[in-house]
């Protein structure tokens, strides 16, 4: 477990070599005890202090609960709110090791058929070079000049840059933006597009406007240091309006689906139930439109060997529930193709 990448800070349980403390499994239920802290090597310079809280006396221990040899450990780390070059220098951490943004290519550009077509042709030279290098590596592996681990590392170091270089050339990398920068970017893009982003439904547009107005008011009140009750009221109103907006949007989406299903099933097969219920429409779809794909035979563990499942016909004993597995995904209860012996099970309704 311990290697050169980690440090283990013990709590002193193993410190007395000549007087080993017996390990006990008992401890207080509500006590939170750190046995040790395992920290990464790169964070080791951040450790300010580290000490063990002294063990309480035997009398105290007997009062507070069962005896234990665990001691809490206090570890103070000097963590900075914002990383600066100075902090890295003092902490002796290389820049590449910490806070360096990861490479992110503009992969969504590959959705464009023109770019997608261009992508495999661009790395021809890269693929050729990589192919030669991998072939050389393979020969070295067969000759025994490198071992399998070295082959794996080097092959990965060939393939990954080959793809990365191609991606850099064709699709480029994405910019890293903070939360505010991203918001500004989106606003700018919307302005550039000059498109109509409001919803088509007038009620939703009105709700969106109201929600945004309340949101702006709330932000303004916070900035101006308004009284707490004013901010609380505005916050409540904003939350309510936002909730109403989401509800309205959900209803609109649901209406689209129900309209589509209702129009496809124009002939009512279940006149007693309301045709406007979503569940009714779903049930009707499952009952009337689902095709049965049930197999005639299924596996059964009748053999004494639990690993062997014999193929046999379906039985109608509902307690052999695994046999109905095939039917269950199709929601075939009360369906004409259901293998479930509903009469035997006295299923009513």
């Amino acid at each position, binding site marked *: 477990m311990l290697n050169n990448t980690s440090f283990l800070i013990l709590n002193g349980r193993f410190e007395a070599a000549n007087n080993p403390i017996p390990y006990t499994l008992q401890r207080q239920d509500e006590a939170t005890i750190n046995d040790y802290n395992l920290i990464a090597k790169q964070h080791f310079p951040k450790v300010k202090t580290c000490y063990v809280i002294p063990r309480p006396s035997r009398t105290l221990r007997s009062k507070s609960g069962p005896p234990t040899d665990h001691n809490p450990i206090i570890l103070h780390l000097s963590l900075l709110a914002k990383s600066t070059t100075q902090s890295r220098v003092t902490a002796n951490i290389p820049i590449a090791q910490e806070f360096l943004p990861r490479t992110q290519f503009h992969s969504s550009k590959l959705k464009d058929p023109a770019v997608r077509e261009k992508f495999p042709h661009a790395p021809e030279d890269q693929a050729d070079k990589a192919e030669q290098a991998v072939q050389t590596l393979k020969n070295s592996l067969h000759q025994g000049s490198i071992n399998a681990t070295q082959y794996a590392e080097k092959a990965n170091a060939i393939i990954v840059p080959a793809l990365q270089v191609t991606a850099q050339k064709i699709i480029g990398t994405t910019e890293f933006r903070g939360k505010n920068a991203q918001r500004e970017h989106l606003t700018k893009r919307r302005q550039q597009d000059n498109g109509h982003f409001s919803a088509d439904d007038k009620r939703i547009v009105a709700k969106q406007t109201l929600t945004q107005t309340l949101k702006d008011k709330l932000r303004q009140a916070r900035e101006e240091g308004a009284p707490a009750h004013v901010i609380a009221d505005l916050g409540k109103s904003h939350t309510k309006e936002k909730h109403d907006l989401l509800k309205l949007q959900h209803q609109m989406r649901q209406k689209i689906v129900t309209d589509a299903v209702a129009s496809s099933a124009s002939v009512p097969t279940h006149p007693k139930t309301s045709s406007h219920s979503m569940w009714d429409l779903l049930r009707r779809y499952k009952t009337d439109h689902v095709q049965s794909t049930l197999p005639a035979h299924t596996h059964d*563990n009748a053999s004494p060997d639990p690993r062997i499942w014999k193929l046999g016909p379906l039985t109608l004993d*509902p307690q052999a529930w*695994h046999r109905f597995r095939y039917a269950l995904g199709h929601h075939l209860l009360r369906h004409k193709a259901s293998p479930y012996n509903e009469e035997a099970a006295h299923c009513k309704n």
Partner: protein
Amino acid sequence: MRELLHKVEHPTLPVDPVFYEDITLHELAGEIKNLNSDKSPGDDGITNRMIQAAGPKFINLLHDVFSTLCVHEIQPAAWQISLMQPVYKGGDKSKADPASYRGIDLSSALAKLFEGILISRLTNFTETHSTLTENQLGTRSGRQIHDAIYCLLSIIQYSISQKGLAT
């Protein structure tokens, strides 16, 4: 005791070819085709979409490397490194509490592709040889927890009706 143990005949189980056969080009191409294009990349920035868009030459290259790695039962150390992206769970949870964040693990796309081939082989083996019990519903294709819930309800319904307790 050792003598006794030596006398016990250990059964020699037949090894399925799936465990020693080379990775085929067809297998790799199928796995690449099935990759989810919209997954986030790992530390190297390579996405599934990039692998899918790379040409046949690159796929041949990958096939060569993957076959060798499979034969030697090894993988690069870089594939074992993953990024942990904390995603705030929202609600009233404290932003200072680490438990308020869901950790999203971002591994290398190449590593996931290689693992996908191995998983496909193992799944194929377990399904064709029925090595898993029928009661195993999790992590299996075409099965879901709803099956178990439905069965449980059916059994309860049946038992109640048999005892005349049905209303």
